[in-house]
């Protein structure tokens, strides 16, 4: 363990002022908790000079609903997220993610904001937020902007955050009557799982199950971060989806995936299983809609 400084902001304005004067860089990092940073320091992947502790900013821990938009504060833990009554049965997808997210202790400290800013394929919330077309609110001293999460994620561990900015909130529309959202993940074991492949789907249909809107995301599509499979989405729009014709999705998605291997799994495996998970998640969405 190495030594470094920790700045504890007195309040939110103090934080903004601090990072305005001491922009985020290779040596200055914002942390909600130690999980990501301690891991990287232990593996000698990072040399930090100063950490900025956000954990005291309770005002960033909330789940609200306003005019059909769900707003989640960046410092909301996974446990707090799923405990919120606003995350109701239409948003059961978050409980699906949580149930396979690390273990109980991890869920108590991992934050929504931390997940998003880590920008890596092992962050399970990202595919779900991508298919919910989430946006993120970024604040700096004297400025605020809202951008789509897709624009926010630039590459592995690279985000659109300016050096004096902090992600404060993510927002997405609630899931309507003719919409459903689901998620699945597969790894080597049944707890403390690092996904080989995960998949999230958002589906909105017309009366006859003609697809009005479909959004599909995987932990990896062509790069090393979660992303939407837009080519597949485009091909599916306007078509009719039922549990029996779900299989034809496979040829469509296969064309779009450009998976790469690592020591956990081969490229072929990742592609094969992505297709399987897509079918399964799609079926679950359809069942959910049929149930209603």
């Amino acid at each position, binding site marked *: *363990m*190495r*030594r470094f400084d920790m700045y504890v902001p007195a309040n939110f304005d103090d934080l903004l002022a601090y990072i305005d004067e001491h922009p985020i860089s290779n040596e200055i990092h914002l942390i909600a908790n130690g999980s990501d940073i301690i*891991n990287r320091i*232990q*593996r000698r992947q990072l040399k930090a000079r100063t950490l900025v502790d956000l954990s005291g900013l309770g005002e960033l821990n909330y789940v609200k609903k306003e005019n059909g938009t769900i707003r989640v504060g960046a410092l909301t833990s996974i446990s707090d997220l799923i405990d919120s009554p606003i995350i109701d049965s239409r948003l059961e997808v978050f409980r699906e993610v949580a149930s396979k997210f690390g*273990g109980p202790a991890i869920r108590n400290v991992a934050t929504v904001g931390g997940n998003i800013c880590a920008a890596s394929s092992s962050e399970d919330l990202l595919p779900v937020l991508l298919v919910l077309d989430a946006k993120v609110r970024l604040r700096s001293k004297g400025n605020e902007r809202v951008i789509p999460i897709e624009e926010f994620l630039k590459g592995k561990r690279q985000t659109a955050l300016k050096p004096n900015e902090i992600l404060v909130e993510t927002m997405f529309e609630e899931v309507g009557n003719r919409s459903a959202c689901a998620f699945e993940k*597969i790894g*080597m*074991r*049944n*707890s*403390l799982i*690092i996904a*080989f492949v995960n998949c999230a789907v958002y589906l909105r249909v017309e009366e006859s199950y003609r697809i009005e809107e479909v959004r599909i995301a995987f932990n990896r599509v062509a790069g090393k971060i979660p992303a939407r499979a837009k080519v597949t989405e485009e091909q599916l729009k306007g078509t009719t989806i039922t549990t029996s014709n779900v299989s034809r999705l496979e040829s469509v998605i296969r064309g779009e995936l450009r998976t790469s291997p690592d*020591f*956990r*799994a*081969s490229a*072929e*495996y990742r592609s*094969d*299983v992505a297709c*399987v*998970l897509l079918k399964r998640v799609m079926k679950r969405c359809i069942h959910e809609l049929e149930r209603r």
Partner: protein
Amino acid sequence: MVDSAEKRAFPEMLLVGKNVERLDVLDKVLGKPIYTMDIVPENALFVKVVRSTHAHARLNRVDTSKARRYPGVVEVITAEDIPGINESTALLPDKPLLANGKVRFVGEPIAAVASHDPAIADEAVDLVEVEYEPLPTVFSPIKALESQAPQIHDNGNIAKHVKLRKGNVEDGFRQADLIMEGSYVTQFQDPTPLEPEAGFVIPEPDGSVTCVGSIQSPFHVQTGIAKILSLRPDQVRVIQAVTGGAFGPKSDEIPVDVLGMAAVIAVKTHRPTALAYTREESMIGHTKRHPFVINVKAGVTKEGKLTAWETRLVADTGAYASLGPLVIIRALFHATGPYVIPHVKSDAYCVYTNNTIAGSFRGFGGPQAHFAAESHMDEIAKKLGMDPVDFRLLNILRPGTLMATSQMVDEACGLEECVERAVNESGWHIKRSSFAKENGTRRHGLGIAIMYHGNSLGPEGSDFASIHMKVDNDGKIGFRTGMTEYGTGAPSGLIQIAAETMHLPISYFKLQPPDTDHCIDTGPTVASRTITIGGRASQLIAEKLGQRMKDIAAELLECKSSEIEVSNGNYSDKKNSERSVSYSAIIESSRKRGIELDVEGTFTAPRCVYDPETSQGTTYLQFTYAAVTAEVDVDTETGKIDVTKMVTVYDVGKAINPLGVEGQIEGGTIQGLGYGIMEDLVHKDGIVQNPNLADYYIPTSLDIPEIKTILLEYPGHLGPYGAKAIGEPPIVLPAAAIVNAIDNAVGVRLTELPASPDRVLSALRRKNVHE
């Protein structure tokens, strides 16, 4: 969970055969500070190790000057600072404590930095400058066998080659109607004790040292540290602190590595010095299971009788041999599986590569050997169109038959009953026929694997154990032995045996921590020998001490000591039971009269004699037998395997503490399950890719099957009350049973471990392509 253990030779006993609470667990449930890093002295220095970043290189320059100057650094050592011999080994003299002129694996220790603040030591590690001259590398043991491969040690890449020759395999193959060949590959499995390796050394004013650590074999450490410091062994005191799991790496040279580096610094600085491995360091630096490549060629008649078995086993021992030469011997002896085969030819090689070091790990060659043998048996059965159980029963070892070593199986062989009980309990026939009718994407399978396990060191060394029992000042019988507790419960079992022998309650005994100053050498705590060899010693010494106490009672009661009966702490005259003296009265009397209630002694097992050229003879003094079934759920679209049920039937000879035995079986089974489907310490160009518990997957509570454990008792001739070794056997079979179950479920034979989802799906893909 336990079916009633069959009581064969011994009548009901007071303690042995009962579930007795262990003596060490109160402190554990209260979270007392009892492990090594809980008791480090106040002013200790902390050590961080500088490790090689090259897999094979000459060290042209190691410059510690910048590190030395770093504020807060107290000392930096390299090979030059070692006062004695720069060696830290298990068996062969092939490994230095700190690299000297050459490194042979990524992670090899080159230097060590000490500071009062571990964070400072860690920062200073980066300031040690090392100039490497890369040498050609080899990472495959098969390639390392080739003559043109880079030579890792001066004597070549073969650390050891052992042979087994029984009969004449060519004759055997001629007699066969069917000859089947197969090739099986296993992986590096990391032992992963939850407490990483740790130790501290206190330099004493008289020039001696006291070493405290997470250790399996205190006397091995004593010898090793004495050599490194150029001291006599009696100047090195080694105490085992409570140890948080071991499984092998804490038995051989690794504690000598840890304590050796700390000791050199402690002696140089005159400060207590501690070294605790990080998890990453532990996984890179400690010994792990040898990967094996095993080729088999078997001959069988069309009726299903095995006639010949030829096998080559190649073990990757990594950069240093550790106990590799002994691992291949155990693998060699068990390579055919527990079957009667008239003609056997086996060769096993322990081969150096530039991977990290393989050495002792629970099972010690048994899991690898049985994975190959039991997979191959299923393949032969399939080819013959026979049920795998029927095929096994046609060939299994029974009393009076000969093993591959020509050792005759004695009557203490419960193997056949193990198979029968496993078959019944698992619903073998009904399930397999219903599984065969399944279609759909989720398929089920049921597989079986059976084993034998030679008990104790056998040919691995002189097998002895020493116990020292003495009534201490507090009136309790202090039980001192060099045999260590690290989770097995075995030392408590030794006390159970002593208590049984003396007819005294267990609460009268106190287990003292192993301390080389207070016990005599008892050999290593390995090879599941604590209950077997240690238990015999316990009986012996308890008998002696018990007799002494009876003698005193007899004097006090004015009768013969043969007439003394002991019950509940009271020694009474059999002829007149109202006349009795208490345990305390006897202690009192002995003190008054200056009679020592202090007995120490050793039990030495008979030597095993066999011909090292052919491995024919007596290789072990008794055997544990077992049969294990596994039921699996295969997701044919993702390749994911869930093991849903297992039946584990073990012939344990005599269960000294049934709950304790069950605990060993359950824990070992889950380690074996991990070995079978999820554990793989991946090396790429000699670099471990996943030296952490995020990406090295050991089973969690959500990965365990329903388990039914059945204990059978066919008492052996070696252990106390006929007890057999049970520490290691449970890890041996699960992988084979699971892989056989997968074959039953989906008709694919996985020949490489672990049976990961990727491998399963890949095999299914290949099968579907060909159909």
